[in-house]
């Protein structure tokens, strides 16, 4: 199968909802996992698998496939759910997630199941790996594109900037980075942009501060993020990462960009689609309880 160009935005929305239901169900079932950053990237992944990517779930190693390389390897609920919906394996397998002997490991493992491009779980490694794929494609005269999904945390690891510099240097025009910019990471808020300062009592100090609940505000400000990519030689776009039309438009534009790599910074909401998870650092790496699952599924019903 090449990409399913015919899928409408309405259909994409309903697929995305199904994927979100999978995400909350499989993490609840595993009683662990990372729903927050999975939910924030659902529109990105859905757009890719149902509108942008060229691939064949029956032939996951097809050399001419477009690559979707997920650097934020903890976002397995998103990865596996989308792949199941795209036909790589049965949806039932999602319930083996994180189980001993199960097919779906906590963090991604390269080609397990086939179609997962990269072993990840350590942040910062995806863009280098993607550049390798991009250079191989050029060397072999193949016309595939390489899409690399990065998180806030990925953009704090130096390796990402090593790879960014090298990608521009090698004019890897078949390489496209996508930043899932949800402004929340493990310890809390990356910056003050999405930080709801309930009491407003503490000054916005550089270096941030630790909140009463143990989360941190302003862990590491990435702004001006687009300027960073530009200065590293990338063509940039900055969009709403939950707007299908914007995502598809940006990715198609990136594909036609020549002379160097390009990045799409997607503003997203961590935990998107589930009211009590939205913009809540608690659900970076915590599964919903049975009651919370029920509530989430209610909110995500068709």
């Amino acid at each position, binding site marked *: 199968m090449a990409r399913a160009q015919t899928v409408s935005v309405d259909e994409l929305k309903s697929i995305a909802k199904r994927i979100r239901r999978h995400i909350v169900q499989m993490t609840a079932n595993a009683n*662990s996992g990372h729903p927050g950053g999975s939910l924030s990237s659902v529109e990105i992944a859905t757009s890719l698998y149902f509108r942008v990517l060229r691939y064949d779930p029956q032939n996951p190693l097809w050399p001419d496939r477009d690559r979707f390389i997920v650097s934020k390897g903890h976002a397995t609920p998103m990865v596996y759910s989308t792949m199941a919906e795209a036909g790589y394996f049965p949806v039932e397998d999602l319930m083996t997630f994180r189980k001993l002997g199960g097919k779906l490991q906590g963090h991604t493992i390269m080609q397990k199941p086939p179609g997962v491009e990269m072993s990840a779980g350590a942040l910062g490694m995806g863009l280098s790996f993607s550049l390798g794929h991009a250079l191989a494609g050029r060397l072999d005269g193949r016309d595939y594109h390489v899409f690399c999904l990065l998180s806030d945390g990925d953009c704090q690891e130096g390796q990402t900037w090593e790879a960014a510099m090298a990608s521009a240097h090698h004019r890897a025009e078949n390489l496209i980075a996508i930043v899932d910019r949800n402004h929340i990471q493990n*310890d809390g808020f990356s910056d003050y942009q999405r930080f709801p300062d309930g009491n407003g009592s503490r000054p916005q100090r550089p*270096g941030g501060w630790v909140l009463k609940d143990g989360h941190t505000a302003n862990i590491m400000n990435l702004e001006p993020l687009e300027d960073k990519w530009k200065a590293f030689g990338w063509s940039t776009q900055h969009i709403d990462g939950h707007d299908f039309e914007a995502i598809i438009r940006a990715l198609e534009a990136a594909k036609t960009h020549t002379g160097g790599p390009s990045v799409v910074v997607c503003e997203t909401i961590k935990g998107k689609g589930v009211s009590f998870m939205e913009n809540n650092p608690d659900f970076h790496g915590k599964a919903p309880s049975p009651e919370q699952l029920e509530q989430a599924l209610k909110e995500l019903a068709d």
Partner: protein
Amino acid sequence: MVRTARSEATRTALGPTLVRLCREGLDIVCIDADLGYSTSAVKFGQEFPERFFPVGVAEQNMIGVSAGLAACGKIAFCSSFAVFAPGHCFDQLRMAVGQPQTNVKLVASHGGVVTGEDGASAEAIEDLALMLSIPTFRVIFPADVVEAEQAIETAARTEGPFYMRTLRPKTPVIYDDSGYRFQLGRWDRLRDGSDVTLIACGELVKAALDAAEILAGEGIATRVLNASSLRPIDREALLGAARETGAIVTAEDHFVHGGLSGLVAETLAEENPVPLAFIGMRDRYGTSGTWEELLEYFGLTPQAIAEAARGVMSRKSQ
């Protein structure tokens, strides 16, 4: 031997202990690479915000910043997961801490396959080998939360580089109300015996104690040593065990090569080569599962230790 029913994750010792020590006047700072919520370092940040430095997900920078603070007289504690520090910043640990011997203490949680559900990438089973390959680092792997707290205090009060591994899950507390005091280079003899010695570290100390119980039922008098201090090792206890029991089993949630097993094998080979058996990880990585399942799955159990003890005893020279 003191055993209680209480369980507690050793990682929870970090933040509260640092708060206490800083209140007592130690010039502690804490550098955090976006895992302070998980390593409990944020507890220190809540009390001493001006002494708490988040650097984002950037372990290399974390070590370098820590070394710089240490060079200015601070006691620099940093923390992460044991797969990322040392793994992601080994050269920085070697160059900015190990060689110049700056006063940096790395406390890395989520060691071992017991990290569990995240799977292979998240389960550090080489961190001790890495840290033992920087000779100026003291390397500690406490058996429980009580010992963890004591070891953190020792690290804070002892000049120079320290690495300490803590764990994610709630593991049994061994030293509650025991009056035990952690000492660098001392392996606590938790149980005495002259037929065989079990030397374990971390959560497998409890497994070794349980193995000794099994063996006791078979009339085997088993010595159990807690090798929490991996550098310096307790040469006296080790050589004594070889001499007095003639056969040793090591047990660690870590690769056999380069870990506790390696230390024991290397030391005895040059001094008194007795039969050894190693319980640990060998040629493969971990996988997803609950921590108890994984201990079973990889044979890091009292039963496996007991079986190894029987085997190694049968190889004793008469």
